[in-house]
């Protein structure tokens, strides 16, 4: 194929260069009803799962139909979204923070045609293209990271674990029958590009083996002081190593028992890969939240120390997640978030009703804050 120039001249990169113009102005993108009623909304209602109405003091209404979907998205799929928005929504739409698509119409009679159109569309493989849901006291789309699709440090896949989980929880995406909304998040390593540490349920890819040392190349590909400094537990030291061929090279050595497998060294130095078929897998966390509602925001807690990568559908993981969701659904009070419920019944009861094993791995031993998580009271349940 022939190279097509955009107009850029590599010989004169500064010629006619435009920089620092930022994003498009949001007002260009507002639907008319939004532009007109911004700041004037008086209330809203979730009419049914995935369908909201917002009412303005002007009397205007905007109806929103929310659809789930993969955040990994082809241009073909985006174009189809645009077709729908052109047909029903005067050419406007928006995305939510959690990768949902929202189609907005300005009157109630436009809702059913839109919904019907969305429901009719399926991928060739059989899955829905635009499942409607993700509102209220249910489970909405999972925010996640790249995984094996596009990242060099993951300990598991993101898109596959998310697809498997959303299939398992699909009824809760299309219903609003939980005690409160439940946010599931996924990060494929603990760099947590998608910070999952304050989610009701968090899926986290995790390594369990210290880095391999590619001594022959290490000093060529890495800045050794940066690799050494990268380690939060000071497990890495500079070292001289004699290769099989007798050459002495500069490299590093790793004190394995101090390694907590965070992979920060690998981020700084490609000659220290951690990935391992048996070592890598899933950590499950639970009970976090970001809302200030009723109780303060809180961190998720590690509730399953490790599950192996079971490609392609991670059944042990989805099973553990379903157990948590079911126990929560059965046990919590109306409005009670998963973490608030666990705290109310006590974490010892949480493990009991969720049928999860408690192991020593779940006791914090990282830094002095660990102490705060131990039990300094006789107030516990047998």
């Amino acid at each position: 194929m022939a190279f097509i120039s955009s107009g850029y001249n590599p010989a004169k990169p500064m010629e006619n260069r435009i920089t620092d113009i930022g994003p498009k102005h949001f007002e260009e993108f507002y639907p008319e009803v939004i532009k007109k009623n911004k700041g004037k909304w008086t209330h809203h209602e979730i009419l049914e799962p995935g369908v909201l109405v917002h009412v303005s003091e002007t009397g205007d209404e905007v109806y929103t139909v929310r659809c789930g979907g993969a955040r990994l998205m082809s241009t073909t799929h985006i174009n189809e979204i645009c077709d729908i928005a052109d047909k029903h929504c005067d050419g406007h739409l928006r995305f939510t923070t959690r990768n949902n698509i929202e189609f907005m119409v300005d009157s109630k009679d436009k809702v059913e045609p839109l919904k019907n159109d969305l429901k009719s569309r399926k991928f060739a493989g059989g899955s829905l293209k635009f499942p409607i849901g993700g509102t209220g006291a249910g489970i909405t789309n999972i925010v996640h990271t790249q995984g094996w699709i596009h990242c060099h440090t993951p300990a598991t896949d993101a898109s596959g674990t998310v697809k498997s989980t959303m299939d398992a929880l699909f009824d809760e995406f299309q219903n609003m029958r939980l005690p409160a909304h439940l946010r599931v998040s996924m990060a494929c390593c603990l760099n947590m590009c998608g910070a999952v540490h304050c989610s009701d349920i968090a899926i986290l890819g995790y390594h369990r083996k210290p880095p391999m040392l590619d001594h022959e190349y290490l000093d060529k590909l890495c800045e050794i002081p940066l690799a050494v400094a990268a380690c939060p537990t000071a497990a890495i030291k500079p070292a001289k190593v004699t290769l099989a061929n007798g050459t002495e090279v500069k490299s590093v050595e790793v004190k394995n028992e101090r390694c907590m497998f965070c992979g920060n060294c690998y981020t700084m130095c490609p000659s220290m890969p951690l990935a391992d078929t048996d070592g890598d897998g899933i950590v499950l966390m639970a009970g976090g939240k970001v809302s200030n509602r009723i109780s303060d925001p809180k961190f998720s807690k590690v509730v399953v120390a490790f599950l192996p990568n079971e490609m392609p559908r991670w059944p042990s993981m989805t099973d553990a997640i379903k157990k948590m969701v079911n126990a929560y659904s059965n046990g919590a009070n109306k409005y009670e978030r998963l973490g608030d419920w666990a705290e109310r019944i006590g974490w010892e009861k949480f493990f009991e009703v969720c049928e999860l094993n408690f192991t020593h791995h779940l006791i914090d031993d990282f830094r002095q804050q660990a102490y705060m998580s131990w039990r300094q009271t006789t107030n516990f349940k047998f």
Partner: protein
Amino acid sequence: MAKHETPFLDQLESGPWPSFVSDMKQQAEVRAKNEAGVEFQIPQDCVDDLLGVVELSYKHGRTHWKHGGIVGVFGYGGGVIGRYCDQPSLFPGVEHFHTMRVNQPAGKYYSTEYLRSITKLWDLRGSGMTNMHGATGDIILLGTTTPQLEEVFWELTHNLGQDLGGSGSNLRTPADCLGTSRCEYSCYDTNSLVHFLTNEFQDELHRPAFPYKFKFKLDGCPNCCVASIARSDMSFIGTWKDDIKIDQDAVNKYIEQDPAYPSNAGAHKGRDWGPFDIQKEVINLCPTGCMKMVGKELKIDNANCTRCMHCINVMPRALKIGDVRGCSILCGAKAPILDGAQMGSLLVPFMEVNPDNDYEAITDLIENIWDWWMEEGKNRERLGELIMRQGFQKLLEVTGIEAVPQHVAYPRTNPYIFWREDEVPGGFERDVVEYRKHHLR
């Protein structure tokens, strides 16, 4: 016909949830057929090879992507993430497969016209695969080759009026909830402020001058739909200082189970939770116990309200946020790596959000914080870690903010106060000879 067998991935096509595999296969097919006659500037079968490399990861249980080299566009230090496959001979279509981050618009509203201009560009010059959106908020254009980076950038800036996002030790594209554009809870116009900040700090977004990454996130109210308190170095959360507005008639509509007044705006419709009980569902769940019914009137002791949003969420037609609006600002949130996760710590209990003076109070605060962090921050030290290392007091000092009890959940439990010499009468220098006159050895 698919270029690679994908028995693992094929199993991810079933089930109700939209299958990323089906979408990739659809895209591979569209590129293979090329009915639009696109003059693809990167390998036509790159999506086939992407399917292949992911399938191989499913077989191995390990990624097949390598570290990015230093690639980018001229004059920028961010916005492009280099990415290379570690099995290029098997998957030549994705040998180079870089990511470009594009500033998303405020509130993530789009016109189809704009979106189609993006897809057209990315079909020509990239894989046609995207993330809508990345975890920080950007539009992620996933997969192109090095020579296309400048071409894409040129087209974005010249034809689409659109810039790249941040990566590396830069400001990252600020992100917001939809704010007043479609939410009655929002205490300020998040879209306007996020757009302002994104444009005001384009230099910081594009040219690495920071110890590490820096994120702004803007939530319109304490419900924190955009998770700013957990995910941003500086979190702007809408709040108000005066009283919650009460429509007593509407309160009684809720009590009377008027169907137009469903609890929690209908969020619990999927289950029969019994009739709405204002005592049990609102008053008893108020974390401060500052509400009560007196006859048919709901009373709120606003001086003891912490604005947690619960009552407003439950009865949005009856209760409204106050009129003296602004935001609280919290600092230091980050994911666990390296020194453990942090949530944002409250720095400014209340700040006005004033577009009329270009948000002066906010930008002044940001600049003070950045000056300190750029001066004192170590390589790869997030703001939260610097605050932890030098102390919250230091943050107050550099921002000129007076300590108030709102800054703490509780006062220190240890008496280890680092008194400064100028705070102690007589200073630190003493005469041991004089002391020994009264205290023999």
